[in-house]
Structure formats: C-alpha cells, structure tokens
C-alpha cells in the first residue's frame, strides 16, 4: 500500500486491505494500548462539504492515537470564501499538519491535491467519485459479520452518484464476491464504474427489483436515494418507497443476512429493522474509528 495517499480503493490490493483490517482489529480490541503511537501527529481536516461521521471519526481516531486535529472549519468562515483555490488551501494547511483528510464536492479533487502536497493524503469523499475510508470500514464490518470469501453482496439505492457504492464495488473485486446492483433505471452504476468492474472480471449483475435476488444475499448494502436527484417530488416518493426495506421485505432473506448502510438514512430502512439481527449499520458506523486509527497509523508510520 502506498503510504502517501489513499485516493480510491482501486489502488488497494487484497493484501493492503487485509493489513488495514488486521491492524484495525488489534486497535478495536485494545484501543488504550495505542494511545501513545502518534503523540506528536497533527491531522489537517479539509472538509468542503458537511460531514458528521467521517469528520468526527477521523478526529476521534487521531486523538486515540495520541495526536490532534486542526480543522479549517466551515467553508463559509474560511479563506475559500475569499476565492482561494483548493490547491492553495491544501498547500497552506500541509505546512501545519502531518497528514491531510480531504472532502470536496468535485470529483477528482483528491487526485488533484495529491499533486500539490507531500504529506499523506486521505480522500474522505470527492463528489460522486470515491470514499475509500468508508469502504475499509464497510469491509471490516462485512468481515466481522459474514466473512470476506464466498460472498454474495447486494448493493441497493443510488448507484449512480453514491461514492460509497463505487468504492465498495471496486474493493470487492479483490475478494471472491458476487455483486448484485439494485436500483431504478435512472440511478444505475455510471459507465466508468461498470467499465472498471468489467475490466477486473468481477461477477456483476444489475437488477431493478430487490425481490429476485434478496434470498441469495449474505450482505445487503442500502444507500440513500437523494431527493435532489429527481426533478419531480412524486417520482422521488415513488422510487424512494420502492427501494426501502422493512421487516416484511426481509422475510425472504437468509436468517444471517447482514444489512448495512453508510448512514445517514432517511426512509430507506424502517426503524423496526434496527432491533433485528440483520441490522449492522450502527456497528458499521462505530467501526469508523478503529479502521481510521489503523489507516492513520499505517500512513503516518510509513511516512517516517
């Protein structure tokens, strides 16, 4: 694994992924024993879009490693408001921090910043592009619940704009996993992702209805369909209703199905599912901290 940047999951081999997950498991088991690992490290948080989970879990992760975070704050209160370019902002904050975490609305933003900075850089979401750190915690959750081999995964919702979907799909090509994509016609996987999956020889099928494939699934990864993707409120309501799940939907599922969601959810998963054995999405969110601790540890260590 490159220790200077994590831009997409396409750059990760199975070995890279397993290295991160192993380290995360050690940290999950005994977080206190890693408290002095990076006592002098400062993490620069560059979030140009709102974030709760990703940003807070990165902050928690660096603090648990003994380090600290500096945050540029909201875009409205920063130099970006004065018209500073992303390239300049990143180069300035690089001078304050040992590693950078970037979230930005433009696709390819992390790739561009990687050309301007020398410290380790983690992509925490670039528009509809990639979200590789989310994928690593997703894989950690899948490994804990279903294992990563001989796996059948269903990914449902906004496959076109969902960066967590794109990153997960690429990463799963490293494993013995069949991938089923379930979405309305208008939100199918983009051409670029389909191209890569085809090139990697992944076993992929696309569906417009969950029913046909649900009984086969070991993991169902649900994503939010965003209202703003639809010009018409009625159309949105109809689609959102069709791609949500409740306990009745899950009657035909395997007993040991793992239901995941990158959160936040709106109506895609009925609250009644939360108390069932299927629900793993809050555990998944919790896993953000050990997995990001592991990533930061590996990248800061490798940078020395």
């Amino acid at each position: 694994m490159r220790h200077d940047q994590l831009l997409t999951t396409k750059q990760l081999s199975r070995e890279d992924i397993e290295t991160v997950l192993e380290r995360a498991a050690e940290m999950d088991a005994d977080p206190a024993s890693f408290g002095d690992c990076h006592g002098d490290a400062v993490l620069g948080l560059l979030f140009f879009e709102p974030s709760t989970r990703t940003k807070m879990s990165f902050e928690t992760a660096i603090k648990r490693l003994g380090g600290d975070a500096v945050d540029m704050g909201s875009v409205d209160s920063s130099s970006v408001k004065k018209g500073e370019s992303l390239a300049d902002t990143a180069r300035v904050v690089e001078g304050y921090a040992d590693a950078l975490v970037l979230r930005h609305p433009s696709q390819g933003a992390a790739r561009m910043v990687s050309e301007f900075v020398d410290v380790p850089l983690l992509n925490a979401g670039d528009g509809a592009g990639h979200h590789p750190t989310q994928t690593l915690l997703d894989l950690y959750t899948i490994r804990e619940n279903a294992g990563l081999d001989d796996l059948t995964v269903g990914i449902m919702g906004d496959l076109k704009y969902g960066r967590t979907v794109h990153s997960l799909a690429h990463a799963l090509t490293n494993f013995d996993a069949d991938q089923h994509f379930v979405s309305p016609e208008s939100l199918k996987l983009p051409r670029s992702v389909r191209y890569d999956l085809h090139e990697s020889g992944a076993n992929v099928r696309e569906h417009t209805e969950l029913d046909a494939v649900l009984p086969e699934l070991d993991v169902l990864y649900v994503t939010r369909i965003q209202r703003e993707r639809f010009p018409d409120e009625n159309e949105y309501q109809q689609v959102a209703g069709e791609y949500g799940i409740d306990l009745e939907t899950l009657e035909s599922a395997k007993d040991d199905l793992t239901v995941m969601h990158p959160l936040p959810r709106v109506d895609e998963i009925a609250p009644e599912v939360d108390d069932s054995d299927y629900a793993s999405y809050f555990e998944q969110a919790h896993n953000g901290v050990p997995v990001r601790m592991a990533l930061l540890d590996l990248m800061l260590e490798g940078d020395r």
Partner: protein
Amino acid sequence: MSDHELRVSKIARGTVIDHIRGGQALNVLAILGIDGAGGETVSVGMNIPSDRMGKKDIVKVEDRELSQDEVDVLSLIAPEATINIVREYEVVEKQYLDRPERVIGVLSCPNHECITNADEPVATEFEVLDDGVRCAYCETILREDLASHIAAE
C-alpha cells in the same frame, strides 16, 4: 491537369493532412483552431474518392506546422490520417499517427463536477482507451464526439 491534381495542388510550405475519414475535415480544423480568422490559406477537400478509404477528406494549411499536442488529439479523431510537412514544395516529413497513452491539456472534461472544471491550477488529462478517452481526475469516459471537447484556448 488531372482531377486529383486539381483538388490537391501543391503548397509551398505548411502541412497537408491526408487520409482523414470522410466528413471529419471540419473537426480537424477545429482541433487546429483554424476558423479563417488567422489569415492562413486553408484548402479543404471533403468526400474525395479514395481507393483505400472509399471517401476521404484532405486539409492543407499553408505556413503552419503541428504541435505534438495537436498531433495527439488528431490521432484520436482521425487515426488513419497522415501528416505531410511541406517545405519548398516538397514533403520533407511524413507522419503516421500513433495513439498516445495520454492527452494533456487538450480536451476539456464533459463532467461539470470534475475538479478540472473548478478553476483550479490543473491541466486536463485523459487516458486513451481502445474506444475512447477517460478523465484521469473524475474518471468520466468519453467515447463520442471528442472533437467537441477540445478545450478552448
């Protein structure tokens, strides 16, 4: 004077782009940024019968040679073309086009959400695929109508 000679009279100095796929000549001119306003003498032949290609286009531009960037993009939309550099009425160099691995700073990305469209200090970069090109930043794949994505100077 034969019919062929009539259409393709010699130029003293400049570039003759031959064996362009029939109908693509105006796109080739677009790549070169030639719209007549620069005052160069330009001759265009379109849909000329060709033994090899059925129909071909020819573009002749006097007092102008092509840069490597221009040749690279030309190879994407007119891969069969040959480029003849002419000096003193003689062809001094004949180039056949190789598809480059990448084209940098020539095409613009059609994805409005791409960082290369966000007023950042970065040149566009496209990886050349067998059947199109792909943005190195946002990964958008472009297969159709590449000529309309040539970045404005």
